[in-house]
């Protein structure tokens, strides 16, 4: 591949030209967002109407928007989202990996049907189950609590599926050798299957974290109390009937993106590896 491309400078130019345009299209709004959050409130939309180099280079940089955020409810929202997302990751990994292991290692009646249900569960739009879910959570008396935000998100069909695929790719010999050596199934899961599945654990953690970090609809429905507002809800609160706090909106969005990226940067190595390898020999 690379050799044929290297032979033709024109195709290289075209290729990188096209990629640059795409990259610009992707990065441009983000860059604008980042810059807008650093502008004085009054100046945010001014350069847009008179498009020019001022659109990208602000006349003055200010941290006022961020200062205002930190003095408001936003730190609470960050805390709520972090608690919810991290707890979901911890419990989600255990629950989904155990479920995936059961599907991969055991033969039991109704296994295929159950697995079908798991797959259907992540194909169904969340909007379709939100009302029944709310009725259920409400009847438990869980509304406006961390439980309401965490528990429904712990079991995740997609992640059960990922773990099942990975565990099924581990040679059965490993499990059998351990059984002959006297290991229980739980021991085999914890000390043989899980240590081999770092890439899947990394991918799954990230997916669980981001799904909670980005969640908006369910928190609005299940925890409307401002004390339980999560990041996306707090961001949306900048825009309401009385006022549009654009500076606050951009600054909080920017923070949400940056903090949401941290887990990805930490796990990038594993994440990329799992996408490439997909299995072990």
């Amino acid at each position, binding site marked *: 591949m690379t050799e044929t491309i290297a032979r033709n400078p024109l195709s290289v130019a075209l290729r990188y030209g096209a990629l640059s345009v795409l990259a610009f299209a992707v990065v441009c709004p983000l860059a604008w967002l980042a810059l807008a959050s650093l502008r004085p409130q009054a100046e945010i939309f001014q350069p847009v109407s008179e498009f020019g180099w001022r659109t990208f280079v602000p006349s003055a940089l200010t941290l006022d928007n961020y200062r205002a955020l930190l003095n408001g409810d936003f730190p609470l929202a960050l805390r709520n989202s972090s608690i919810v997302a991290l707890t979901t990751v911890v419990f989600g990994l255990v629950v989904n990996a155990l479920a995936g292991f059961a599907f991969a290692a055991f033969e039991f009646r109704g296994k295929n049907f159950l697995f079908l249900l798991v797959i259907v569960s992540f194909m169904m739009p969340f909007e379709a189950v939100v009302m029944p879910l709310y009725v259920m959570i409400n009847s438990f008396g869980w509304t406006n609590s961390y439980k309401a935000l965490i528990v429904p998100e712990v079991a995740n069909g997609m992640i059960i599926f990922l773990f099942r695929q990975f565990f099924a790719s581990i*040679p059965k*010999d*490993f499990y*059998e*050798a*351990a*059984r*002959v*050596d*006297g*290991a229980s199934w739980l*021991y085999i899961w914890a000390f*043989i299957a899980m*240590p*081999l599945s770092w890439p899947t654990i990394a991918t799954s953690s990230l997916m669980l974290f981001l799904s909670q970090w980005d969640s908006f609809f369910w928190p609005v429905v299940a925890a409307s109390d401002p004390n339980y507002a999560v990041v996306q809800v707090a961001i949306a609160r900048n825009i309401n009937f009385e006022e549009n706090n654009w500076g606050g909106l951009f600054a909080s969005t920017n923070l949400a993106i940056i903090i949401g990226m941290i887990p990805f940067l930490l796990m990038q190595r594993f994440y990329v590896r799992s996408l490439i390898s997909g299995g*072990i020999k």
Partner: protein
Amino acid sequence: MATMSVRDLRKSFGSTEILKGVSLDVADEEFVALVGPSGCGKSTLLRLIAGLEEATAGAISIAGRPVTKLQPKQRDVAMVFQNYALYPHLTVRANMAFSLRLRGENKGDIDRKVTEAAEILGLSALLDRFPGQLSGGQRQRVATGRAIVRDPALFLFDEPLSNLDAKLRVQMRTEIKALHIRLKSTMIYVTHDQIEAMTMADRIVVMQAGRIEQAGAPLDLYDRPANAFVAGFLGSPAMNFLEGRISGGAVIATDGTRLPLPDDMPAAGEGREVLWGIRPENIVIAPEGLAARVEVVEPTGPDTQLLLRLAGQPVTAVFHQRMRLRPGEVLHVMPEPGAINLFDKASGARL
């Protein structure tokens, strides 16, 4: 160390019966090889003994203790797998210590046993490596080491050498046999390689289609196979079978050639359809013998292997000498006295 016995063991997967009633006794300190073609049920039998599969019917006992319904860990067996099943995230030392840790033995005992096993197997320098850094032969040794640290009642080997190249396989064969002599342990060894079975085992159990065809000492089976299947399975190149009919004190082959009967063969059985069997190395050159046309000449160094056409049928012969022959030449050959095997054509049973 211990005895092992299975009684009328059956195993079905769905409607397919893999084991159709197998009974076998293994004596203390015995090395038994289970051989047979793919799908004969030898691995399934081993897995049933290990407890990795549940028997459909029948009974298994180890050291006189019934274990049919017990979990693998309660059976006191160690198993070496074809793919070694070494945990890639653990060092050689941790792999070998795995079962001892599970049993909750103290660290000193574990270290002593692992070091001892590593010495026996020549793994002392490799204890801190990971399986991925080992060669095939070393991995095989670690897998064996993981079994011997446990000091189990029974060792089970499931085709442990089939992933090695031919040269290494011969070397490991000798090592496992030496290990058996040293440990004085009871071992059951599954292989599809009849040479492995012949060279290593005290006793060979030949299986086919879920049944035991014959069990006995390697050379007894080789010399006096109970039926045509066992005769054809043991030995390489395989025994030659010529179809014919007993008539007038000889076997008349399909093209009318008169093949001699074994010396001890009673005159009875006139008109019976038979298979006339002769091993390749039991064919000798004799001027007064049967005419055989040479079709292929294969020199192996010490031996010369010939594909002959004898009585209209292909026959392999091995001579322990170098021979200058060309395809198309005609040799005169005859079977060594006492080396002829006769089998019933329909049932395959020895006559």
